[in-house]
């Protein structure tokens, strides 16, 4: 009951946010909040395989990046309709995940980490080589995708579109996680051999999970391409996969809102360090704000070493009694 009330309050706050920012003349934060929500979507999709499925994929940036390129290329090629472009930006990364997953899921443990990384690197170099679409420099898009009745060029409209898609995705994935499919996925994470012995086609379940995560990663990518109106290979760099993993673990691996909390924390922290001067640190080292990643790194290290359940874990520990652990 408490949780539902909190969710509704949060949702109302998110709906009111652009109005408040416009009233305060802080329009920049509308765009910033959109970015957080897009990364929340990407991290949530990764959390599905990482947290619930126990598949440590070190290549999720490939799917997000593929989504950015699909959406970006559609816009550049004169087909900006989001109703076609965005589903396509889920379909193609989903297919990519099908191909990558089919090979990668044959390996276990550390080899799975490495092979997903290898595939992501291949996609990265492929995008670098696409000279027609800017190669290493990437593409600047002439505008955002178009939706009927909604002008996405307006930052507030774009914000509400992203919010709607994020809420929809969270509802859908939460539903999925508590369905029979989700239970099977979690059970496979706990004991794959046993699930196989009971007669579940574990490989197929894992592959389906991997594909769903890839497709939603692609959706996040499509939104990301629209958000900044550019597409470039750096979105597919392996460190981006690392960043998405950071968000998931910061928020809490396998917690429903882990991806959201993680994206909010990481991007919020970066923003805070870069734009808010703290007197006593500035006294010690005047240029410290150019090194916001140092702060991010230290916070991450402390979280991994001392709070392995992430931020959601800190708050939910008493309630759930580590049942999700």
């Amino acid at each position, binding site marked *: 009951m408490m949780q539902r009330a909190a969710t509704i309050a949060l949702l109302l706050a998110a709906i009111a946010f652009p109005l408040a920012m416009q009233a305060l003349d802080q329009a920049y934060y509308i765009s910033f909040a959109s970015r957080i929500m897009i990364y929340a979507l990407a991290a949530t999709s990764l959390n599905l395989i*990482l947290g619930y499925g126990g598949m*440590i994929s*070190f290549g999720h940036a490939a799917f997000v990046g593929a989504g950015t390129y699909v959406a970006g290329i559609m816009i550049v090629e004169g087909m900006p309709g989001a109703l076609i472009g965005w589903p396509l930006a889920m379909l193609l990364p989903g297919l990519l995940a099908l191909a990558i997953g089919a*090979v990668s899921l*044959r*390996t*276990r*443990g*550390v*080899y799975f*980490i*490495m*092979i997903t*990384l*290898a*595939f992501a*690197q*291949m996609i990265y*170099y*492929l995008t*670098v*080589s696409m*000279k027609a679409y800017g190669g290493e420099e990437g593409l600047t898009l002439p505008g955002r995708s178009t939706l009927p009745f909604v002008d996405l060029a307006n930052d507030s409209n774009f914000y509400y579109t992203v919010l709607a898609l994020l809420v929809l995705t969270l509802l859908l994935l939460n539903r999925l996680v508590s369905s029979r499919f989700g239970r099977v996925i979690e059970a496979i994470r706990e004991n794959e051999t046993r699930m196989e012995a009971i007669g579940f086609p574990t490989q197929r379940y894992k592959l389906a999970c991997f594909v769903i995560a890839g497709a939603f990663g692609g959706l996040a990518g499509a939104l990301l391409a629209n958000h900044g109106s550019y597409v470039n290979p750096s979105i597919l760099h*392996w*460190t981006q996969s*690392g960043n998405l*993993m*950071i968000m998931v*673990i910061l928020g809490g*691996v396998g917690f429903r809102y882990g991806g959201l909390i993680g994206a909010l924390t990481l991007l919020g922290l970066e923003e805070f360090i870069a734009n808010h001067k703290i007197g006593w640190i500035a006294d010690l*080292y005047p240029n410290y704000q150019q*090194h916001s*990643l*140092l702060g*991010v*790194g*230290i916070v*991450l*290290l402390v979280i*991994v*070493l001392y709070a*392995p359940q992430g931020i959601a874990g800190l708050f939910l520990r008493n309630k759930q009694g580590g049942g999700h652990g």
Partner: protein
Amino acid sequence: MSGILILEQSLNGLQFGLMLFLLAAGLTLVFGIMDMINLAHGSIYMVGAFLAATLVQATGSFTAGVLLAVPATAVIGMLLEVSILRSLYTRDHLSQVLATFALILISNEVVRIIWGSDVALSTPAALSGPVELIPGLFYPSYRLLIIGVGLAVALLLYFIVAKTRIGMLVRAGASNREMATAMGVNIKLLFTLVFGFGAALCAVAGAMLGPIFAVQVGMGDNILILAFVVIVIGGIGSIRGALIGSVLVGFVDTFGRAFMPHLLREFLPPQFASAVGPALASILIYVLMAAVLFWKPQGLFPARG
């Protein structure tokens, strides 16, 4: 494609492969003995290169600078191991990946604060010119030095691992850690030493490659991934696998870059070939790795029996 060109590219491949080996050797031992994924290995390589550049400048001698940078980096590596990495051995791979990823962010920024984004490190003046190896083949003498150093270190490593008592302990630890501990091996101390040694090798690679690539923040991020590719291909924990994997990756990468565009031009339109060639060359080693994992999931030379 002339014979001289092939010979020249072979030397380039060997040189790159041997430097990869210096990175991969430390990584594979850390990975093999403690089952620990250390993404910060690339950062140690970066720190080694920065230290070398500073010390070369301070001493005015390339040799002295590099020889000082190597033990200094080893000490930094051991401090890192004792203070942070040691507590990660018993944790799962996900925690290791994230904690060491955090170390990458931290060390990139700390290096930026201390040195700035890059420092200059140039080839020693005596070795700046090319030498004529065989008639018609001029090869940069500095690259020959790299090959020499790489071979010497590889031999030294082989001698230590295969012939000495400490090497025997390392091999024992890599093939079965629990058994080695049960037999009374002080695995903690052993591991700090191995880590320091790995850091020293990183410094050698960083210092030697510094004049060829640039000594800059983030220089370890990409080569780290190549080192991982090498050890996965070679078999985690195996020094021999790391050597063969390194040379293989060095050759495939160098030859791919040199000849792939020509090769594609034979049966593709030239414009398309010159666009796709370099990308295919970059992808080649990852294809190699995926193929090895697909058919030999433990790598070519698995260390565990």
